[in-house]
């Protein structure tokens, strides 16, 4: 269990984190989202005990991070942003060092060491000096370090940054497995990750929480929630369909993509556009290779929540998905 209470951090005149209060329970995977500089890393650093809050408190498994730092830290595994480690050490020496500090001994130590090496596929580089490793391996060494003592609480600051798609997949699978009995906080700016691993997402902008709900609830905030997306085989069919769909009373707007011959019908709030759209297709007897109901677009929700409205409109496609 982690709770933060009125957590704030001030750097000079700038309020990097502004009065965050939330709690996370075991079994939850909390995705921490925000644009660069929104205060994600600062918040995670305060939870991990690296940065002292200007105001407010963090409690990890009942231990206040400022008053009982060793007790709190021993229950946490932390992967700092950029996965720093001691470059001059070999992977093996580094893991032994962390195992020593974490007080792992005997059979359990051998077992845990074996598990993290296997799960993170570190065996081929175990004798290599860390600074000679690729970015992906370094990230995995950082993850191994955070997991070696089988902590109840995991704080991972951008765990998949710099990994290739296969490695990303592997790390997400690992997080999903861990989440059965642990509490995980993951910061990321990769939105697809939220859907794959998180049970809950907090979006922060300018140091404040602007959303705190499940990924599906976030998606339902999207204007594309329940939008009908369909693709045509011929451009003239698309043109005609666009006219007719736009005339439906339940449709607010129709967007078209000339290159892919795709239409997206955005419904009015609370309405369902699918029956009307299907009726039009059936009437014309068009062959439609693709037709589906969208659940919502996280990147669009993210943009609306983290940017002032004027900029959001002119900056379509600026966010990585």
């Amino acid at each position, binding site marked *: 269990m982690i709770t933060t209470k009125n957590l704030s951090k001030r*750097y000079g005149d700038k309020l990097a984190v502004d009065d965050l209060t939330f709690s996370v329970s075991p079994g939850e995977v909390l995705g921490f989202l925000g644009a660069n500089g929104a205060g994600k890393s600062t918040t995670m650093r305060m939870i991990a005990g690296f940065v*002292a809050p200007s105001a407010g408190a963090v409690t990890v498994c009942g231990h206040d991070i400022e008053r009982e730092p060793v007790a709190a*830290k021993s229950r946490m595994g932390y992967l700092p942003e950029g996965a720093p480690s001691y470059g001059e050490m070999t992977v093996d020496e580094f893991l032994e060092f962390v195992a020593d500090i974490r007080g792992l001994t005997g059979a359990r130590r051998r077992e845990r060491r074996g598990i993290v090496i296997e799960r993170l596929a570190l065996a081929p580089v175990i004798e290599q000096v860390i600074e000679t490793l690729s970015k992906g391996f370094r990230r995995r060494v950082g993850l191994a370090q955070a997991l070696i003592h089988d902590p109840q609480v995991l704080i991972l600051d951008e765990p998949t940054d710099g990994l290739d798609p296969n490695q990303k997949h592997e790390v997400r699978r690992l997080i999903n497995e861990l989440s059965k009995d642990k509490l995980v906080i993951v910061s990321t700016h990769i939105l697809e990750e939220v859907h794959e691993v998180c049970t809950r997402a907090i979006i922060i902008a300018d140091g404040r929480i602007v959303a705190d709900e499940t990924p599906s609830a976030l998606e339902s905030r999207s204007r594309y929630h329940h939008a009908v997306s369909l693709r045509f085989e011929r451009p003239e069919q698309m043109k005609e369909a666009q006219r007719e769909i736009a005339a439906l009373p339940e449709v607010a707007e129709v967007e078209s993509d000339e290159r892919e011959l795709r239409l997206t019908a955005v419904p009015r709030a609370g309405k369902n556009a699918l029956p009307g759209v299907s009726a039009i297709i059936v009437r014309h007897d068009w062959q439609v290779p693709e037709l589906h109901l969208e659940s919502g677009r996280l990147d669009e929700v993210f943009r609306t929540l983290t940017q002032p409205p004027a900029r959001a409109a002119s900056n379509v496609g600026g966010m990585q998905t």
Partner: protein
Amino acid sequence: MVVFRRELRSYFATPLAYVFIVIYLVLAAVFTFQLGGLLERGQADLQPFFRWHPWLYLVLIPAISMRLWAEERNSGSIELLMTLPITLWQAVVGKFLAAWSFAGVALALTFPIWITVNYLGKPDNGAIVAAYVGSFLMAGGYLSIGMCLSAATRNQVIAFITAALVGFIFLLAGYPVVLDFVRGVLPQALVDGIASLSFFTHFEAISKGVIDLRDLVYFAALIGFWLAATALVLDMKKAE
């Protein structure tokens, strides 16, 4: 202690440590034989050797201490170290003891000079042991200053220069030339106070062969003060 072992091992993981020891030994030999005239003096003691230690350390100890925290801050590994379940004090003391042991190894490797004077004559070996102890304590003093300044920056060059500068002040404060100069403007009690803060005064006393409790207390207090200052600097950086 775990931090101590890791740090000490990291010194010897790079060729830098060996380069450092070689430079130290060469400089020590040059000072002793060329400038100190150990052989020409015709006296079987190691005064010409130890006399130069305060100056040798002034340049070489900051080279050890500069990386202690600045490197961790620069590479980001400090974030890892500070979020592991150890106290700040354990990290500070572990690092200090590792650096001090390393300096001790370098100092111990000057033993051929000791053997040389024993071969050539009959020195007072008790006094030599005392001088070695004094030199080791002085190295600890320089290191603790350098460590504190290293904690204040992420730039190793700045850590080196400031450590050498503060070390220089602590050294000069005991030199008669400087003391004579300030004696003209300050009351005697204050002058004595300044002198008693200097490495030089206390090292000089021990290297004459007398290990006085006051000199030991001085070095212990000096090191303790700068280690506490290091912890304070790190704590302030955390809250910054």
